[in-house]
């Protein structure tokens, strides 16, 4: 079963960020190992000294490029960055990040909604990085976001999903795909996200900053598949006490 986002279907439910890799080689091999079809990039001032290009890697692998608005603190910045990205990459898609502060990198609900509304009005396909508040998620959905991307814990914290209940509630109430974005630390976190009903997982640091990024990318690919299949398989209920698996016990 494939993931549908804004009318396009994808075989992989894992989206990779390209930040934090030690080298373009490591990035390329990890992207390949992860099986992802979508990779995010940021926009920054031209640096003539920069070696090689993330763009070439993404094109060589035939991935779908998803620009983000990382580092924007206001709707105004985020909207301008999205417009620049549209011009630079000829894509209407944007991973919308509007950050509230630089310690938590948590989204700012008010500015996020403002930017999303503006960009949707301009015809963008908006994938907002949001917190785990189901009410905010519903607002983002109502104004026309193509998905909601709640965090599990702070970006790069590797702390996993700190409030699985909110994610569960958010998923139950969502009418668009839910992508768990930010906080994934290891494979079990990614599997849990899918078991909670998320439609996909977006991660970067857990792979790019792992001791062995390629091995972790492989692990994440399998973990997302495992969690997705486990969700569909229908797990057994949790019990306080035992339930014998051998007759007569």
């Amino acid at each position, binding site marked *: 079963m494939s993931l549908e986002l804004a009318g396009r279907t994808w075989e992989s439910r894992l989206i990779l*960020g*390209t*930040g*934090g*890799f030690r080298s373009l080689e490591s*990035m390329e091999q990890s992207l390949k190992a992860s099986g992802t079809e979508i990779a*995010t*990039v*940021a*926009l*920054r*001032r*031209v*640096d*003539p000294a*920069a070696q090689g*290009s*993330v*763009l070439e890697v993404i094109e060589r692998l035939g991935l779908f*490029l998803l*620009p*983000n608005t*990382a580092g924007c603190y206001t709707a105004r910045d985020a909207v*301008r960055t999205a*417009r*620049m*990205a549209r*011009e*630079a*990459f000829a894509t209407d898609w944007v*991973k919308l*990040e509007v950050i509230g502060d630089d310690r938590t990198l948590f989204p700012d609900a008010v500015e996020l909604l403002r930017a999303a509304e503006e960009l949707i009005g301009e015809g963008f396909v908006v994938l907002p990085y949001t917190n785990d508040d189901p009410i905010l998620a519903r607002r983002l959905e109502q104004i026309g976001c193509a998905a909601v991307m709640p965090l599990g814990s702070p970006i790069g914290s590797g702390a996993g999903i700190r409030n699985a209940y909110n994610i569960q509630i958010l998923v139950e109430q969502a009418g668009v795909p839910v992508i768990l974005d930010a906080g994934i630390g290891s494979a079990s976190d990614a599997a849990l996200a899918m078991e909670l009903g998320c439609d996909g997982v977006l991660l*970067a640091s857990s792979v790019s900053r792992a001791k062995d990024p390629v091995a972790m990318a492989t692990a994440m690919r399998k973990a997302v598949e495992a969690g997705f299949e486990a969700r569909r398989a229908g797990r057994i209920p949790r019990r306080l006490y035992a339930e014998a698996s051998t007759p007569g016990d």
Partner: protein
Amino acid sequence: MKIELNGETVELAEGASVAEAVHVAGAAERGVAVAVDGEVVPRGEWDTSALREGQHVEVLQAVAGG
């Protein structure tokens, strides 16, 4: 004339085009976007749109991130 290019003051010929600024900034052929005084300039207008003294030009390109 002087313009501010990616935060630094640079000297360009009178009426230099956005395309020239992009060249000076050392941008790659592709995956580049330009804003002049905060307004995005479509690639199609780079050659034709002339810059004026003191304008702020931002030339951005893709970096790993997010």
